């Protein structure tokens, strides 16, 4: 017993340079472990409660499904070989929409920073377009581009683009004037001002835009798929609704959540790389 706890303690205090430092790192690591444990417990409790409620008929599993049914559906889909097709189709459209919408939004924001005239002209349109529910454009894209990847991506782009432009432009325009003055006294060109001051200074804003866009791109893709896609998680949800298989619907939702988590983790990794040396 003591040897196990001693081993644990050695692991918790690894890398410590003094007894006081060991105390400090132990506290920090224990806290981190506690947070992770409670997070895991919450997840297990939520799914456990769901299963229990269904087993005791507190809720009707026909309407609410249950975790074991979701697991069975997952195995079935995997067995049919269609699981990764549906995931792949949706992920591809969402990532494409995310990348195009974000990159396009940043490019437009850069143009607006470069030419204040463009920014003044576009401002009211952007605000109104951003407030317009882009979902309403879904049928338009389907008619123009067919029930295809193009239409789903277009919808994802339309949802991410305007909010990116607005937020990123606000970031670009909000860069401390003094920093630009410093660059200007050295004779910086407009391009140098952008590359050496405005863009790096706005990286935290850009990362925030990326985080928001993960969710928005998924919304666009799923809604697009609702409108008649032959495959994908959006298609599965609508199909599940049609045949009244709540397990299929819930399974798709769980998969979507997992997909969002993975994309978000990717953005977080990028954030750590980009903002490594800054204080929050």
């Amino acid at each position, binding site marked *: 017993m003591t040897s196990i706890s001693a081993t644990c303690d050695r692991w918790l205090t690894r890398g410590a340079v003094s007894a006081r430092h060991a105390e400090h790192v132990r506290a920090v690591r224990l806290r981190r472990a506690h947070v992770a444990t409670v997070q895991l417990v919450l997840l297990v409790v939520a799914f456990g409660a769901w299963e229990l409620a269904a087993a005791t008929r507190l809720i009707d599993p026909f309407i609410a499904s249950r975790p074991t049914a979701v697991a069975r559906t997952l195995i079935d889909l995997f067995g049919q070989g269609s699981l990764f097709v549906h995931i792949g189709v949706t992920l591809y459209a969402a990532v494409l929409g995310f990348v195009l919408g974000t990159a396009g939004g940043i490019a437009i924001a850069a143009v607006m920073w470069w030419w204040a005239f463009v920014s003044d002209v576009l401002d009211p349109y952007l605000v109104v377009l951003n407030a317009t529910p882009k979902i309403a454009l879904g049928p338009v894209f389907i008619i123009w581009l067919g029930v295809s990847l193009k239409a789903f991506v277009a919808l994802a782009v339309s949802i991410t683009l305007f909010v990116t432009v607005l937020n990123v432009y606000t970031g670009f325009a909000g860069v401390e004037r*003094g920093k630009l*003055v*410093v660059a200007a*006294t*050295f004779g910086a060109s407009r391009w140098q001002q952008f590359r*050496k001051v405005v863009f790096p*200074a706005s990286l935290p804003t850009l990362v925030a835009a990326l985080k928001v866009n993960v969710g928005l791109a998924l919304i666009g893709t799923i809604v697009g798929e609702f409108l008649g896609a032959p495959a994908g998680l959006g298609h599965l949800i609508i199909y599940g609704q049609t045949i009244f298989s709540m397990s299929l619907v819930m399974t798709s939702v769980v998969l979507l959540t997992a997909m969002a988590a993975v994309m978000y983790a990717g953005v977080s990794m990028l954030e750590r790389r980009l903002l490594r040396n800054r204080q929050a």
Partner: protein
Amino acid sequence: MSSTEKIRIDGLSHTYYTARGETAVLRDLSLAVAEGEFCSLVGPSGCGKSTLLGLIAGLTPVQDGRVLVNGAPVHGPTREIGLLLQRDHLFEWRTVLKNVKLGLEIQGQRSAESRGRAHQLLTTYGLAGFEQHYPDQLSGGMRQRVALIRTLATDPDVLLLDEPFAALDYQTKLVLEREVQGIIRANGKTALLVTHDIEEAISMSDRVVVLTGRPASVKQVYDIALTLPAERTPLGARNAPEFRSYCNAIWDSLDIYLRDV
């Protein structure tokens, strides 16, 4: 005298225009600063001192009058002029060394000599070993020193100092005043310092120029002659017998009353 004139300002007037109207900030201002001279500008708050520096630095286009640096009219920023501001405006995403090299990068100076100068300056001014630190790891005084080295790294002849010590605590301020003055005198650079601090102006300068309120023009010029030991430092200057009377004279000349503040 005119051959060693570094900065010449003739009949300079400047007005800001907004939708609501116009504000004249400078009117018929004339001033000359000789090579190697340390000249200070004092004046009531908001009298247009920073505008004047912006015009000399080429950041603001000249409207009326002339601004000459080394005998040539100023059109935009040049390598001959360096500007040091009240706030250091260090880039938080760059290390100390990369902050110092900003001007060299922008001006495309990639020679071993200019890079060597950046390292040399960091060592000389007590920042050796901090090259790879980030600005948020430095104290206020160190940050302002990095900003100063960033300005000096491109080797300008003329330094425009826009209240660079105003945001520092008193001790740091005295130490940095001494350092900056030392650097400027040792390298034969010309300096124009804008300040609210009359003692700072007298202790650092060869000449103090008092400006009128807005629109600013030159009200009075004081040549500072202090009885000092061989080496002149800002702290030593404060102990010179003439120091107090300069303070009083300049204070009177500023003519600031409660209604103005």
